[in-house]
């Protein structure tokens, strides 16, 4: 497609430019119109060769390349080097050491534990988030205007609460001394699972309770995004379809699985993949909930990687090996995400 916004190069900007005669070594332009400023000639050259989009992309690409893409490649390189404190300070040169960082990591039971924690966490949290989000989205579509605004405002506030704040709030809610969760559970009747043994229960000191807190925290922060997306998707479904199903005697369950779900399948696929990527790679919340007390056996893959790299003695090479594994896992899921997005027509 020919772009038109360069049709009259320089008409508005040439006023201040010095009007120089053509230099001898001008680019091999076919028509050398005399009396053009160098800026005008540059504009013509850009237009003739279709350079404009590339020029516009240069600054953003340079920044992304320098600070995002290159570090991703570096992680791969460092994972084959003995990068430690002596190397970063320049005291010793870095050496290529083959796969020994990887063998070290793969023989570490803590690595496998952290990988398992990340996997199980994603397997639990992703469906929960999608179910809660979809239910709230469906609820929002059925509520009156005022109530819907109230509920969506509440959801917006949960979604907008920074990860650090959400984490310290949930750490406080589940604190053994004075936390409201332990107090409520200890007051609940036994048939609801409550009882005095909950008083002073410590949530952060073993894996299962800590990740139960994290599950609730993550569902709380991420369900609003799902709800709003599902709600937006529901608005695209023609109301005649739901009407027809109702006339045919379909209940809400049937009409969800026969109409809503098939219509919103692409949206759900994107939400599913995004949630997997976010929950598998979650860092800030487990850092504050589990790592602040310093429980190594509660690390997920991201925390394991981070602490391998940065706790003394720093082992950036070993950390990079884990980081590379983490990155590859997320990239594989991302490919699925990209394919799903492309099918939805995002590239147009």
């Amino acid at each position, binding site marked *: 497609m020919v772009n038109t916004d360069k049709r009259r190069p320089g008409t508005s900007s040439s006023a201040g430019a010095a009007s120089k005669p053509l230099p001898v070594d001008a680019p091999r332009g076919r028509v050398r119109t005399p009396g053009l400023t160098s800026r005008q000639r540059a504009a013509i050259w850009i237009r003739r060769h279709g350079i404009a989009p590339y020029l516009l992309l240069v600054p953003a690409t340079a920044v992304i390349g320098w600070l995002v893409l290159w570090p991703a490649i570096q992680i791969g390189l460092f994972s084959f080097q003995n990068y430690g404190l002596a190397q970063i300070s320049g005291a010793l040169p870095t050496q290529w050491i083959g796969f020994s960082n990887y063998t070290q990591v793969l023989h570490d039971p803590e690595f496998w534990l952290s990988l398992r924690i990340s996997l199980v966490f994603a397997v639990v949290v992703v469906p929960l988030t999608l179910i809660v989000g979809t239910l709230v989205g469906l609820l929002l579509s059925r509520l009156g205007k005022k109530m819907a605004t109230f509920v969506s*405002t509440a*959801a917006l506030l949960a979604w907008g609460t920074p990860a650090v704040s959400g984490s310290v709030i949930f750490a406080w809610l589940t604190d053994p001394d004075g936390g409201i969760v332990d107090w409520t559970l200890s007051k609940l009747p036994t048939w609801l699972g409550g009882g005095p043994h909950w008083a002073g229960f410590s949530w952060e000191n073993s894996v299962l309770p800590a990740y139960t807190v994290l599950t609730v925290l993550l569902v709380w922060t991420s369900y609003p995004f799902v709800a709003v997306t599902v709600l937006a998707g529901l608005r695209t479904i023609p109301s005649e379809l739901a009407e027809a199903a109702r006339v045919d005697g379909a209940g809400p369950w049937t009409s969800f699985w026969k109409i809503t779900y098939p219509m919103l399948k692409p949206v759900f696929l994107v939400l599913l993949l995004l949630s997997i990527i976010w929950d598998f790679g979650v860092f800030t919340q487990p850092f504050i909930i589990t790592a602040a007390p310093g429980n190594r056996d509660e690390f997920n893959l991201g925390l394991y990687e981070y602490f391998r790299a940065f706790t003394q003695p720093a082992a950036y090479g070993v950390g990079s090996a884990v980081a590379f594994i983490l990155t590859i896992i997320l990239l594989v899921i991302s490919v699925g995400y990209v394919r799903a997005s492309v099918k939805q027509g995002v590239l147009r």
Partner: protein
Amino acid sequence: MTTAHAPAGPRGTRRAGSAAKSLRKALLNLAGLLVALVTLFPVLWMISTAFKPPTEIYSLTPHPIPLHPTLANFAHVLSGSEIGTPYWNFLKNSLFVTVVSVIISSLLALLAAIALGRFRFRFRTIYLIMLLIVQMLPQQALVIALFIDFRPLNLLDSLTGLILVYAAFALPVTIWMLRNFAATVPRELEDAAAIDGAGAWTVFWRILLPLISPGLVATSVFAFIFAYNEFVFALTFIGPDTSKFTLPLFVQYFQGHGSTGTDWGAIMAASTLFTIPVLAFFLIIQRRLASGLVAGAVKG
């Protein structure tokens, strides 16, 4: 549900149907109320705790509303008696880093979005796919390489380093969202302006920019929230010198450094000071944000 048959049925059924309908409505509203309260509870509890004196915070029977509200927790974290510098220093750091990185990423994203939204060129599709994938790279992985790269450049323990990283990591999403807005500006407008003798620069200032600016607002909000909330890079780059802390580090500091156990009153006060501006901002721009969020979510 039974309401489905109501309009077709005889009189009696219709009355029963309308009763069922209002019951259904009441149940839905009840569910809505429950969802909203459960969702709001953590934030409300944070605010309420921030105003409680220690005796009430660790009381055996917690009260939702402070019986003897106090500003002592706020005074404690505002003064900086524990962390070294007062709260305003961290607010200033956070705002400086956030505003500068948003300006940088918005400018760069605007140029890139015009390229991707208004032109067709050879590597366009590949570039778009690259942007989608780059968004997914885990920050806690890249932070190792950036830490090593920034050390010789003196960008560690410096707000400049954070600005660069925040601008770079906000770019992929910002470009992607802005591109959708750039693509929706009708080409006829540009053509008409060009026929009237407007140059590239005029077309940009008079036509593209005004029409893209709502998108620019939405993407700036995204970049702002991202930079204001960011934790991993700040944690890693900003060293023992607490005076360079951003607000997330300020909040986290109180969790690790209680003089006598964990001082939840101070943490909740710090967290309130950090969170409430964001939430207030969200409420103000709610309508615009909802549409922008949906546009970003559904369009990609």
